[in-house]
């Protein structure tokens, strides 16, 4: 037995409810953190940062946010792109309006502003449920994009409506703008992701998280046992939008450096993040990471294999890439409908029993 929990007893409730109750997992986690913070920054180059790590970290933040709303609280949202746009434009206005304030606070404030917008568009969720709720979030998506496109104040009256991130530093090192070193981008996003994931974990294991899950699993019963649906739904919208706003701000300021609302924060973004959450696993923190990794890495990986190694024409490779991604999604679902996170859990369960089948 390679992987086991026997001999790993818990004496207190607190120990029992820790994030990684099994020692093996815990060790793995510490190693991963050590590598992420201590090793990767020294090895990373522009390509790995811009094509893989930074988008992965940012999408993971967005996926965490959406997972709170959709995975934990059961409210389907297709407004992620729009809320990311709020984060991005808020960050842009703050960056250009208060150039002396540290960018970290801009990013957090952008999240806060997005949270307020999210709550506003979350209001209809009290009456509208299930897929129908998607209409409210889609209204947010399209309206917000339209707004940022139409009102020149948001893009400081630039000719084409593009916004550009000026250079901003943390501890004297640029984290936005053209001269940012790859490792600085990466670390900045990693730190924020770490904080966000930690908050998400705390919220989802406490009473707020249970309220969300109760609403998700059976809203009527939840209300009858004492959950205030208004407060828990809106708090989910707020927290989720806070995260997504942060992701939007980073996406624009750190990753892209320049953005145009319709192109960078269109409906496709909403779908993409939703796919990440579902593929990764609804209601799972790990799933948010897995989903983001899957949808960021797989295309890059496939492209490199098909074009780089096999030398196929780019268009054919792009089409076949789509087919492979589609087929993989379906295959995973058939193997395990509850996402990569559940696949991982079942694998662990099997490992625990190994070498016995049951």
């Amino acid at each position, binding site marked *: 037995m390679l992987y086991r929990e026997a001999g790993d007893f818990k004496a207190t409730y607190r120990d029992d409810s820790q994030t990684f109750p099994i020692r093996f997992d815990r060790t793995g986690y510490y190693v991963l953190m050590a590598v992420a913070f201590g090793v990767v920054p020294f090895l990373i180059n522009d390509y790995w940062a811009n094509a893989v790590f930074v988008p992965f970290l940012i999408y993971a933040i967005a996926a965490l946010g959406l997972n709170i709303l959709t995975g934990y609280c059961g409210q389907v949202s297709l407004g992620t792109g729009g809320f990311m746009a709020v984060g991005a434009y808020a960050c842009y206005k703050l960056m250009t309006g208060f150039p002396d304030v540290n960018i970290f606070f801009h990013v957090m404030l952008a999240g806060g502003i997005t949270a307020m917008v999210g709550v506003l568009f979350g209001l209809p969720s009290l009456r*509208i449920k299930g897929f129908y709720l998607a209409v409210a979030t889609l209204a947010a998506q399209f309206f917000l994009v339209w707004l940022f496109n139409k009102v020149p104040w948001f893009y400081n009256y630039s000719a084409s409506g593009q916004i550009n991130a000026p250079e901003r530093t943390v501890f004297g090192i640029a984290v936005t703008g053209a001269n940012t070193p790859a490792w600085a981008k990466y670390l900045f996003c990693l730190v924020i992701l770490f904080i966000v994931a930690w908050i998400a974990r705390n919220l989802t294991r406490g009473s707020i998280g249970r309220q969300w899950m109760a609403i998700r699993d059976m809203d009527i019963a939840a209300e009858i046992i004492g959950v205030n649906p208004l407060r828990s739904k809106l708090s989910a919208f707020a927290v989720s939008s806070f995260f997504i706003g942060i992701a939007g701000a980073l996406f624009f300021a750190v990753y892209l450096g320049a953005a145009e609302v319709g192109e960078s924060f269109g409906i496709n973004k909403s779908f993409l993040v939703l796919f990440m959450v579902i593929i990764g696993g609804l209601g799972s923190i790990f799933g948010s990471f897995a989903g983001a990794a899957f949808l960021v890495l797989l295309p890059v990986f496939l492209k490199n294999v098909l074009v780089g190694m096999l030398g196929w024409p780019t268009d054919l490779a792009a089409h076949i890439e789509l087919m492979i991604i589609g087929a993989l999604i379906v295959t995973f679902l058939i193997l395990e409908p509850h996402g990569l996170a559940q696949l991982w859990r079942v694998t662990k369960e099997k490992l625990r029993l190994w070498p016995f089948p049951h």
Partner: protein
Amino acid sequence: MPETLLYAIEVTLNGLMAGVLYALVALGFVLIFKASGIFNYAQGVLALFAALTLVGIQNGQVPFAHLINAIFGTSIHHFGWHVPAVLAILLTALVMVGLAILVERFVLKHLVNQEPIILFMATIGLAYFLEGMGDVMWGADIKKLDVGIPQGMSGAIDDFTYNAFGYGFFIDQLDIVATVVAVILVVSLTLFSQYSKQGRALRAVADDHQAALSVGISLRFIWVLTWSIAGFVALVAGIMWGSKSGVQFSLSLIALKALPVLMLGGFTSIPGAIVGGLIIGVGEKLFEFFAGPLIGGATENWFAYVLALIFLVFRPQGLFGEKIIERV
């Protein structure tokens, strides 16, 4: 009559027609939702795929030519024949049936009794796959689709209304054809689902896969049936939209225009799709026409959703949707 009123009437008429076109796409969604509770994200791609196949067959394109050429270094593209429109449509319908069978065989069958969100997810995978496959099969360039549907201003209506009101209304002939087709589809599908045994089975499946299985409803049959019909509806939508704009990737995005229609009408209602379409069509056109110039235009996308949202706040299950059962 005052000018503004005439314009308003013209815009309303055109809004109605546009609504019919949205409804055609929404109809496909409704069918599949009704029969399995699946929100079929792939419906738009299905329309694209159908249209691509239709054009490909019509023009005698060699399917997978690009792939074949890339692998074997050949240079084949066309068979060199041209298939008449009617025959091509029939062949495409057959292809869609085949597709339905494959979808059942490789996707749905393995996902019986899963939650809606998971089935939704599967259709996302399907959408990716079909999008890639459509491109590999027929190429990603823009293609002209012509099955002989007349286009352009209808002279008869222009003349008639000119004589009657002193202002000739603009109505696109294509829209008139689309309306006729949509009405036929809606009526026959409504009759089918409301009054036939299969129709009842369809609704039963949507409610509870397991219970449906337990009374001997063959999910396979029901699913192949509905996906075939949905494929056919997608073909019709693909023809109408493809005739307007050529067949290319963006065709799959019309699904986004169908979403508010669907929600407003109710996911489960076939007549709802058409009524929803009409309301959205008229609403967004009037708003864009009169309010658009004041606030910068391009309002149609969000306005359609806001309109649907307003309706939903009062009727959370859509205008004609089945009431969401809330009981403990």
